[in-house]
């Protein structure tokens, strides 16, 4: 699904954020991406969704070299990736329904189809009764679930999440991760960046660890935190 080959990223006027990173996430796989603050987790996710371009190396999505994707085609690529942010990135003056419907409106779905899919997505994240609230009236956990509903509403094959539980207490964090597990169980590839090692230990999934922009370990973080 995602393959990095010797990928480096240097921001202008800054040190190297990523150095010769290699990894391969299989189709239908779920993995965590961890590391200290500033290790390069967000940068790695941004490279996949073409929010940033690599300085060196190659990135493949489903076998396609995404450095070949022109600026004009970036929006079409993003429609196949569901992205979830720590700060939700919701439109605060629009209802929950309108927020979740946004990717579908952009893709030109019809009204009844939009309604059906949005309600299905909200149902999955347990927010069917909040469809016509505005996000400001929701709790942090609920806002994060709206963000997840928006990311999955057009059924992308790949979900990327950057610190999705960053502002949540452990109980809510576990609920959010259960949601990701549910999507993964129906074949969606999931990559979650987090520095919450306790959470990772509970879930027992493949874990990619970054240290100062280098991939320092790749595998199960076995036992020690359990």
């Amino acid at each position: 699904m995602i393959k990095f080959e010797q990928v480096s990223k240097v921001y202008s006027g800054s040190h190297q954020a990523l150095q010769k990173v290699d990894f391969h996430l299989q189709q239908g796989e779920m993995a965590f991406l961890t590391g200290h603050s500033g290790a390069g987790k967000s940068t790695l996710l941004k490279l996949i969704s073409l929010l940033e371009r690599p300085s060196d190396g190659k990135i493949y999505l489903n076998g396609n070299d995404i450095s070949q994707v022109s600026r004009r085609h970036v929006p079409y690529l993003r429609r196949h990736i569901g992205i979830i942010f720590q700060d939700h990135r919701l439109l605060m003056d629009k209802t929950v329904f309108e927020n979740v419907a946004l990717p579908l409106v952009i893709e030109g779905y019809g009204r009844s189809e939009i309604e059906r899919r949005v309600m299905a997505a909200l149902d999955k994240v347990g927010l069917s009764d909040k469809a016509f609230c505005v996000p400001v009236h929701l709790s942090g956990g609920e806002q994060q679930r709206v963000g997840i509903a928006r990311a999955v509403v057009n059924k992308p094959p790949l979900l990327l999440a950057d610190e999705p539980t960053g502002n949540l207490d452990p109980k809510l964090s576990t609920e959010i991760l259960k949601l990701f597990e549910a999507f993964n169980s129906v074949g969606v590839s999931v990559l979650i960046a987090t520095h919450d090692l306790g959470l990772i230990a509970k879930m027992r999934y493949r874990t990619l660890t970054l240290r100062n922009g280098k991939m320092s370990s790749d595998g199960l973080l076995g036992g020690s935190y359990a």
Partner: protein
Amino acid sequence: MLNILGSSPRIAKVPWYKRFLMYWVNHFQQAVGSLGELWRTPMASLMTMAVLGISLALPASFHLLLKNAERVTASWDNAAEVSLFLQPGLSEKTTQNFIQRISLYSEVEAVTYISKEQAIVEFREMSGFGNALDFLDENPLPAVVQVTPKPQHASPAGAKLLLAKLQQEKEVEQGKLDIEWLERLHGMISLVVDSVVAIAFLLLASVLLIVGNTIRLNILNRRSEIEVMKLVGATDAFIHRPFLYTGLWYGLIGGMIAWVLTSSLVLWMESAVIRVAGLYQSDFRLLGLSLAEFVFMLGLASLLGLVSSYITVKRHIHLIEP
């Protein structure tokens, strides 16, 4: 599972005919939506549209002024009459032949013949020198033929051409055209036209800048919304659309304001002119904007709004990256 990129990045998840239909439904929704957006900042929107309206009303009013002035001076153009003084000693027959011949000129509207005898009678009546003429042995006045050009040849330049042509005739001793004042008038009018055109261009340029600036502020206000749209895969064109509609609305409504302003000005001027000229009895009317001119003004205003928002949107939305 879907191939993320496939051969074409535009994977048709939605059939084309639905996509096509929804494209227009979206357009309509965005058009109405951006009209609603204007109400969110009523003062700023109204100011922009008012400035647009005033900027368009000024050249439009100048245009009306010229149109009415031209209508009045059109009647004066008939004063461009050519007087031909005939050779002395022409026989009656030759003279009649000559008149016959020049009446057939395509430029000529009418020909009036004033014989030597008629000329002297007129002269006696018009001047106070009637008695003086009795002392002369013979009539000193030449026969005169007055030629009125057709309206399309009545301009100073056209009348001059006609005069030159008529002077070629062997029966003509001398031709005369009193058009100096007419030339001056036409010169003044074209000077006014030139300055109005220059002012109009400056005003239209300021309209471009004003609408562009308002749209730019709109874009900055909605920066985070634009970022989110880009994050979930909106194309630039999709993000541009509401702003383009906003520009179109500014233009259209500004155009209507300009029309209201110009029409009020015409009404006000009309009553003022009637009062000054004491024309209560006549059915004097100032010409207002015709339907074609009204449509042209709205079209131009909308086009200006659209073009300036397009230029702004092209530049600024490109710069916003999530």
